[in-house]
């Protein structure tokens, strides 16, 4: 036997990857996904179109006989053109209050799901109570309850104007669990709170068939993840956290983008969504296992992939996470410990105890996360910030998987 053959064999068992290499496999880019959606999303209005529609809106706002013709024209307009026009109005800083409320009123009557991403973003910036209520009504018609917290907040405000309060109360009839005509306000209030609670857990108010235009708008919004200034990134995260199941599959595609920042922020958003994503993934075990196995190979975004996986709260997720706790570097170990805090079932606690007993050099964050699983009220390390402690205690109580 040749003397170099054993060496060759050993070489093929070479140590695993170093931080600068990755065996991760990239998917399609945002641009390719946009093309793949088969749509260009909402049309961009020419200045002439915008001016014409704006003239109609001006007459429509006046009401009465003068509004009849422009209203008819707006009704006859394609849903995509109308949604594009309404968005352009409400996104403008120069728009006056009556025009803005008028635009949201149209949205509340006839929303199109292509407008969902950008309309959800309005929830972040819209301050006018009437506009917020109308905006939320339109979202509810599309089975999106992101505006319910705002309606709850407004109804709890004793100083709210009567007319606005009535509008907020009227929106409760849009709730999928509305107790029906003649229900007392107490019953409606209960229905509102039940809905909010259910939305936090599932973000699912029934199946909707998303349009190709919605998907295209998703990909356009996802472009913001590439931004170097943080504001656009934060806007996309705000929106994607609130789109519910129609966005979950798309987010998992975006998490394979060749751009590091797109992957990072997508996985981060998935971690923030947490439980609803976990409940959606749970029945699709082969799909999510394959997805996360690939995502975890990416050394650049591994900590975020661990956070997304742990955030799902699925007990089975912990099996994929454990090796990274036991073999990862300090950053990866911390992310893995946090992920286990959100997902590890009790039958794996012994493995955690053994790890903690043997490992002395993990970060204070990781040590505290694991201690929270193993002890009822562990002492927090002095170097940990109160907000970091609080966040982990919250994760401990928010676990949903058996």
């Amino acid at each position, binding site marked *: 036997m040749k003397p170099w053959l054993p060496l060759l*064999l050993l070489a*093929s068992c070479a*140590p695993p*990857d170093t931080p600068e290499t990755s065996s991760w496999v990239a998917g399609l880019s945002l641009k390719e996904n946009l093309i793949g959606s088969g749509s260009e999303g909402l049309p961009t209005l020419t200045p002439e179109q915008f001016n014409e529609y704006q003239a109609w809106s001006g007459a429509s706002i006046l009401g009465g006989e003068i509004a009849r013709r422009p209203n008819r024209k707006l009704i006859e307009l394609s849903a995509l053109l109308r949604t594009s026009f309404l968005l352009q109005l409400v996104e403008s800083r120069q728009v006056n209050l009556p025009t803005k409320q008028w635009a949201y009123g149209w949205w509340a009557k006839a929303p199109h799901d292509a407008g969902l991403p950008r309309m959800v973003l309005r929830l972040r910036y819209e301050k006018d109570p009437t506009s917020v209520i109308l905006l939320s009504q339109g979202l509810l018609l599309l089975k999106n309850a992101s505006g319910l917290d705002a309606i709850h907040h407004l109804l709890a405000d004793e100083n709210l104007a009567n007319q606005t309060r009535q509008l907020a109360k009227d929106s409760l009839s849009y709730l999928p669990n509305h107790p029906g005509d003649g229900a007392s306000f107490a019953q409606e209030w209960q229905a509102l709170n039940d809905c909010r609670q259910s939305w936090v857990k599932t973000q699912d108010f029934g199946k909707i068939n998303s349009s190709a235009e919605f998907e295209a708008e998703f990909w356009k919004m996802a472009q913001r993840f590439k931004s170097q200034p943080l504001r656009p990134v934060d806007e996309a995260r705000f929106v994607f956290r609130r789109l519910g199941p129609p966005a979950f599959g798309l987010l998992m595609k975006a998490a394979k983008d060749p751009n590091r920042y797109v992957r990072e922020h997508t996985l981060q958003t998935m971690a923030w969504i947490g439980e609803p994503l976990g409940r959606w993934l749970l029945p699709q075990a082969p799909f999510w296992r394959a997805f996360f196995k690939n995502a*975890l190979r990416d050394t650049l975004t591994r900590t975020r992939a661990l956070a997304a996986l742990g955030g799902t709260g699925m007990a089975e997720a912990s099996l994929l996470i454990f090796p*990274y706790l036991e*073999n990862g570097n300090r950053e*990866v170990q911390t992310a893995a410990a946090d992920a286990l805090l959100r997902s590890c079932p009790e039958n794996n606690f012994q493995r955690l105890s053994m790890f903690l007993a043997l490992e002395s*050099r993990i970060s*204070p964050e990781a040590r505290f996360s694991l201690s929270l699983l193993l002890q009822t009220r562990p002492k927090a390390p002095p170097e940990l910030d109160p907000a970091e402690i609080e966040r982990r205690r919250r994760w401990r109580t928010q676990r949903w998987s058996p």
Partner: protein
Amino acid sequence: MKTRWLPLLLASLGTLALLRIAIPPMTVHETPPISSADCRSCHPDVWEEWQSSHHAFAFKNPEVRRLSQNFLNEECLACHAPRGVLSFAPGERVLARESDRGLGVDCLACHAHPKGGVATTNLRPDPRAACAPRTEIRTAAVETCGSCHNQHGTVDQWREAPLELKQESCLSCHMASTFRLHGRKGKNHTFPAAHSLESLKSAVTLALIRETKLGQTGRVIVSLTNSGCGHHFPTDERSRAADLQWRVKTHQEWNAWQHLYRFRDPYRDEADLENTQLPAGDTWQETLEFPAEAVGFEVRLLYRTNPFQSDEEAVEVVRQELAF
């Protein structure tokens, strides 16, 4: 013989290669230091300097906590507890780390080498050092600071600044050379900037010129020059503001301070406000009139780390009285 074991060997190699592809690699061999706290034992003097800096304070700073809603705005974390900046392309935005966040902008934020060990500008790093130092000129590059400090355009402002003010790089003003124990030369890690009164004082020049005018009133030209700053004044966070105020003395008593001008880059949603930062080398000036009975006139410049700070909380950078 040869023909018997060769296929077996090839099959084994193939199996091993397939296993290597199928099983996700996960172990990462780390080169010390694994935490910035490890740096302290060999570099106690640098550690002490850094501890007094706002880099060390970045995560715990109560004002940052308030403005970021206790980091509920997680985007703020990226620069207040960053991963090693050298693992990003030059000038690209840095991302938040998971561990040791309490250390803020720590040693490894600037010195973690993407290939392991630490990055240093030292051209002959000690190969025996436990932290496995490697020469990496990028550590001192403007783009490295820019990963965080260009979020609000400071590095772009520096690029546009007059040559005599911009100097070589960020380090020229914010990491001056220093001598430590046994005469060892190094760069000061206290990073003096807006939180240092001395730095603020060296950034601007306040001047008052009295103009004589026929009639009942006095006139004074107030000017503020960005005479020592390689970027706008104030810069970085949009919350930072510098206010000029003036007051007169009549009948032996000073009247209340009056607002004259605010230098600041407004928040994005302050659509009605203009950016009034003072670019490097530029002078702002305004003429004021004061009553003829005045026996004293003075102007002061207050620096606020957030625009809502009261005058008492603000730092007085400079005050100048007009000679009567």
